[in-house]
């Protein structure tokens, strides 16, 4: 039975990584947000599995919060902002799709390489998840760097955060409840504020393309 659960946990982690990679390859805004939502759903599934197998009930709270906030509320908010400011449906890329995918692949390799020294301290099941988590964090950051719109930067940040929660689940069976609540609170408020400023930027430049934000320099 434990084997089955461990395999399912791995499956969830792999799906999360796949969705991050797909996000690198997508050129449309709405699917990008939906991919984030799906990724969060797998995170919640994984949390449930970990909670069940390690018998730690507080992780269920985290799973519920993930479903409510990250699967439903935040994607809805992002789509709402996009509708409100009439953002164009295409994602602006500064790195083409083949390049993005190649970069994502390299990042996965790097993650396996950098997590190698840590593996001694961990059990087998956690090894994959840790490397996957680091890859997702790196790919999320890459997404933020290579996409030009305010909304895509936000999705990149949120996917980074998902990778982080995956890592937390994998190596320490979740963090203390207070850390998780704090993290949810922080992300939630950050997304609201980012939405407000995306709206302001849109009003100033009639676009949420952050390449317009190049005035402050010397």
């Amino acid at each position, binding site marked *: 039975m434990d084997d089955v659960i461990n395999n399912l946990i791995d499956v969830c982690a792999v799906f999360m990584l796949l969705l991050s990679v797909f996000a690198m390859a997508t050129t449309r805004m709405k699917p990008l947000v939906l991919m984030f939502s799906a990724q969060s759903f797998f995170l919640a599934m994984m949390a449930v599995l970990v909670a069940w197998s390690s018998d730690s009930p507080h992780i269920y709270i985290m799973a519920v919060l993930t479903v409510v906030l990250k699967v439903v509320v935040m994607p809805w908010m992002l789509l709402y902002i996009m509708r409100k400011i009439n953002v164009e449906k295409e994602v602006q890329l500064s790195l083409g799709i083949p390049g993005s995918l190649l970069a994502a692949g390299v990042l996965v390799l790097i993650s396996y390489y950098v997590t190698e020294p840590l593996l001694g301290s961990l059990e087998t099941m956690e090894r994959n998840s840790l490397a996957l988590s680091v890859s997702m964090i790196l790919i999320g950051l890459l997404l933020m760097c290579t996409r030009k719109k305010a909304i895509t930067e936000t999705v990149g940040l949120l996917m980074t955060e998902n990778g982080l929660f995956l890592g937390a689940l994998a190596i320490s069976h979740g963090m203390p409840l207070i850390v998780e609540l704090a993290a949810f609170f922080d992300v939630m*408020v950050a997304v609201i*504020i*980012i939405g407000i400023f995306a709206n302001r930027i849109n009003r100033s430049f009639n676009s949420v393309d952050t390449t317009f934000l190049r005035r402050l320099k010397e």
Partner: protein
Amino acid sequence: MSPELLAMLAVMGVSCLVCFLIREPKLLSKVMPVCALAVAVATMWFLVPVIGGETYDEGMFYVDQLSALFMSLVCIVGLGASVYSYAYIGRDREEGELLSRQVSTYYTLLMLFICIMIATFAVRSMAVVWLGVGATTLVSTFLVGIYTSNESNEAAWKYIILCSVGITVALAGLVLVYASTIGAIDSSLALDWTALMEAADKLDPNLMKMGTALVILGFGTKVGFVPMHTWLPDAHSQAPSPVSGLLSAVLLNCAMYGVIRFYMVAEISVPGFATTILLVFGLISLAVAAFLIVQARDLKRMLAYSSIENMGLIAIGLGIGSPLAITAALLQLAAHSITKPILFFSAGSIVQTYGTRTMADIHGLPKAAPFSSFALTAGVLAIIGVPPFAIFVGEFSLLSAAVDGYVWVAAIVIAMLSIVAAGFVRNLVSMRSGEAPEGRHERVGFTTIAPIGCLIALSLFLGLFMPDAVRDWIDSIVALFGGI
């Protein structure tokens, strides 16, 4: 809970509530400094026994001498910024830069910002410290973007995105530190400050190393270490000057506090690791900031670069890691917090008088703005480390600490500080000379003179006669660094 702590929290709560309920900008601009004064008095009253050597440890609160240092700096600078806001924001309102609705929002957020910073230093769980540092970003984003111009929106956008990434990286570090405590500390206490210090030598060294690196990287984004510093000059130059002063003098300290706490644990569990990272970040920040100061054209950006430089010096002090170097880092931190608002406040008045931040367009300062000119000159002399001022004590101790075993660091620091001094003096001289423009006069009132004057006096006082109480206070903080 002790009555002092309860009183402090109650005063903070009531002050925030009062500033939230009063919407009339004229009234609020008078009430808010009074609230800030009340918060400062209540906090200092609570801190007196702590500064005397006691450690307050109860429930979720933990205040030792290190937290007391940071808390008192927030009180001093917060009060100064609130009083100075009356003059600065009042003029902005008259000139139509801000709507009355924005003025009310400004004061409410300013009060909340000060209270959150004080509370961040008073908690015992590192997770809550992390939350506090994150919350300060969220509140201050609106203060940075208060003018709603294109430039200030851009500054606020960069600020929230970069600092959110930073805080996420710091959380990743926190996760690894937590993972390193498994087996050493009971999981409900795992990120508890006292528990971490007690069990520091039992933590898993590999996880702790990676965790420390990520925490320093993450909080370092908010401290303004190069190369994660790019938000800093934008935010500092676009925010209203009282807020710039607060950001530079105490917000950067909040993140530095997180770095210092993890540094203390890491130095016990994996000695020599955190020091190396901080030394590298410190030297890079110092060197890059020195050259940015020389080529700066915008007055407030130049001051922002100087914050990066000072954070670099503090990191170098921590990076050397001997007791003298840590003393130097703490002195530098306190001195910078007291000195930088002088510069930002006087620069704010100058910018309002001339209507530009470009230094090439500012001439004849002593004629057009006699008081600001005097204050800016005093501030520049203080920040480049001219002897009677407090920064000199910090920089001198840092150099004496570096000479013992880190001569090459001392050499680099001296070279960079000379470049910084040259850059500052050149720009100051060009702003003081020349013809003053017609029809532009500064407005000087009590609310401009009092905060700037008090800070200059404090900086001189600490530089000339460092009282024994302060000496003992700093020594007791250094004693907390168990790893050295």
